[in-house]
């Protein structure tokens, strides 16, 4: 039983948890930015007419969706050095998370763009806008609103996925829990504490989602 559950040890290890939490937050944020870039590029490729760009983008997205992140992480972790890239674990982790989430974000953005009615595009074509102007002034501002909620959902997934980086020894939140578990043989203290921290992050992003939906719901069109 947990009768000797030691809050003292948790307090003692709090600086370590704090560092882990901070690392998880910033590496997730950085990966999310990376994933947005990957996603936008993939989505742009996927929306082209010719198969030359579309086929590789589709293949990439399918490959990522049909394989586990952990296998992708190991693929990069054990594979990159063979290609001559010897990178710190943290960097490998951020690359893996960006490449993985990017595939999902590409689909989110695509769904957002395709949700814009055809008539909107025709109206902007008829008024003499170029492709770039159409995208910038008409399509993307509307698609933006549709994509915010699923993007925040993806952000939650990304934060949770970042726990896997502990398996390649990145010193993030889960790693902090593992250290407490193995140093002091206190797995309950270690893993329950980090679970609480992850829940905190989860509710933060969820709160953001609620705020954003309220903000998006009132601003502009209410169609």
């Amino acid at each position, binding site marked *: 039983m947990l009768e000797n559950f030691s809050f003292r040890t948790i307090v003692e290890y709090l600086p370590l948890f704090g560092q882990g939490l901070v690392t998880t937050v910033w590496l997730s944020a950085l990966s999310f930015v990376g994933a947005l870039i990957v996603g936008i590029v993939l989505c742009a490729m996927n929306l082209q007419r010719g198969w030359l760009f579309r086929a590789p983008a589709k293949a990439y997205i399918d490959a990522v969706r049909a394989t586990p992140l952990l296998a992708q992480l190991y693929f990069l972790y054990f594979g990159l050095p*063979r290609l001559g890239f010897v990178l710190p674990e943290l960097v490998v982790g951020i690359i893996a998370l960006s490449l993985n989430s990017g595939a999902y974000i590409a689909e989110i953005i695509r769904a957002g763009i*395709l949700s814009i009615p055809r008539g909107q595009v025709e109206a902007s074509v008829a008024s003499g806008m170029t492709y770039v102007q159409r995208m910038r002034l008409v399509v993307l501002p509307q698609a933006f609103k549709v994509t915010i909620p699923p993007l925040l959902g993806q952000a939650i997934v990304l934060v949770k996925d970042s*726990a896997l980086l502990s398996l390649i020894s990145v010193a993030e939140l889960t790693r902090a829990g593992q250290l407490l*578990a193995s140093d002091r043989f206190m797995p309950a203290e270690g893993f329950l504490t980090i679970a609480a921290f*992850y829940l905190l992050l989860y509710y933060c992003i969820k709160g953001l989602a609620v705020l954003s939906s309220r903000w998006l719901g009132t601003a502009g069109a209410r169609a």
Partner: protein
Amino acid sequence: MIWHQFLSLAGSYPLALRGLGMTVVLSLISLVLGTLLGFGLGILRTGGNRLISIIIGAWVDLIRGTPFLVQIFLIFFILPEFGIELDAFTAGIRSVPTGQVEAALASGLSRWQRMRQVVLPQAMRIVLPPLVGQYVLLIKDSSVVSAIGLTDLTRVGWLVVQRVPNGLLVFFLVGVGYFIVCYPLIMLARRLERRIGAAHGEVQL
């Protein structure tokens, strides 16, 4: 060099098959248990008792808000403290279904409940595509059990790469293994979704 590695890899195919078998068996058992549990929770949650639905809602949040790796560590390391001894395999099964399946079902079924006039087959058609999607997630999530020492496909890759130092090749093959299992399910989910879209008269994109 490459040829040598290929031979060495070919030599470890029984291990790879065992890993794939473990992944499939673990996923299948988890899938069945998870679906049953999910239906149970979903029906309880929409049953009208506020207290129960709040508790289940909190439970679902707890599951959705924490990484699967952390959940599996909690089960593997903490249950023994309550006198429940689990081998890694049982721990794997216990934790995989508590992953996401019931969350999907809970939300799917509450939607069903809101539309009381809708009959069961129609509800199943709403639930089915996200459910199949969750099965794909479940199979992929099962890779995390390698962290508690189960020799599933991912762990096989991890073991082999210690011997054959070609991570690109080894984990490419691991990826192919998962792809073979998951991709048909992804296609199935897409087809189901399209059929529902057509039934609802939505525009196909």
